């Protein structure tokens, strides 16, 4: 029963090798989907290319459906999986700052790594920027600490936070994703084409 490494089914020594293999597939899929192009990524905010929305929400829907299915079938114990913690204001304010950075630069860290790999010099500068940003945060950590450590609500899922039924959440999320795809195609037809 999964997860395999934490349960000792695959020895921990394989951890780093598996990390590289997973990374290679991750990088390949992102690059092949066009995520090494900042102008393609930024299209989602101006309505001329919705690849980000489509890839991101398809991936989220497929993965959440798959994980819950595997739990249902007994292959994976969902309670053993790492759940990203909820620090309310950290998530919101951090997200706002990241959103600003996203639309200014047209990259997020994962996609910039792909762009670096195919020789985009602006992505190299972006990585340099991230390093500076992390450095600033670390140096002024005492200033950010109340936000970083405060308003902690635990490593909770929507199921635990709101008492919702996970299957309904996933069903409604999938419906929202499909509606978003349809709407994005309508919007894209009305927006002036940008060639890049």
């Amino acid at each position: 029963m999964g997860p395999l490494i934490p349960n000792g089914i695959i020895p921990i020594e394989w951890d780093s090798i598996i990390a590289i293999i997973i990374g290679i597939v991750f990088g390949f899929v992102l690059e092949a989907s066009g995520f090494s192009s900042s102008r393609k990524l930024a299209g989602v905010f101006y309505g001329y290319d919705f690849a980000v929305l489509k890839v991101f929400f398809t991936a989220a829907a497929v993965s959440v459906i798959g994980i819950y299915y595997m739990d249902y079938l007994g292959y994976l114990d969902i309670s053993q999986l790492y759940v990203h913690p909820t620090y309310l204001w950290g998530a919101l304010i951090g997200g706002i700052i990241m959103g600003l950075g996203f639309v200014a630069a047209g990259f997020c860290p994962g996609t910039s790594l792909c762009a670096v790999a195919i020789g985009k010099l602006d992505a190299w500068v972006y990585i340099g920027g991230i390093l500076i940003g992390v450095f600033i945060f670390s140096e002024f950590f005492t200033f950010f600490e109340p936000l970083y450590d405060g308003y902690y609500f635990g490593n909770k899922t929507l199921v635990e936070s709101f008492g919702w039924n996970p299957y309904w959440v996933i069903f409604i999320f999938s419906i929202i994703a499909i509606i978003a795809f349809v709407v994005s195609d309508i919007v894209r037809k009305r927006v002036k084409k940008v060639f890049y």
Partner: protein
Amino acid sequence: MKNNKKTKFHVYWNPYYGGFLLGILIIFTFYITGRGLGATGALKSSVVTLVDTVAPTHAEGNVYYSKFIKKGENPMNSWLVFEALGVLIGAFISGSLNNRIKWRVQHSPKITIKRRIVFVLGGGILFGLGSQIARGCTSGAALSGMAVLSTGGFLTMLSIFGSAYAFAYFFRKNWI
């Protein structure tokens, strides 16, 4: 790129196909390791290692760096660093297969290279800062968080995209 303009063939994968494969990869990652994907983790490790090498006493005195420095362990020896190396290799393979490897600065023809570099640097600094405050970026917090229905993951995702749409108007000259 040249072929694209003339024939309008798909130079990139169909986004639903890419998204489907990415979803499968996330399931696989959780099934094997019990955790999700990430991207900023490797960059954070790099900063910690850099500061620890240049100014070790300073790094140990700082509350944040010292969280990630353990005696006898290299911060670069982490799952996320190996994964990020894999991302570089994977993207390079995909780029090679499609003849996309080239040194260049990509920017809208309406703006100069200098302007592009200034904005990309500023965006990087902001994203680096924000990712530390939110404890993860679009991959680690939003995508991997959403895969297990994490409340924090959904909040971060809504916040990133909400904010990007809200500020998009001010940056429109860079893109359209």
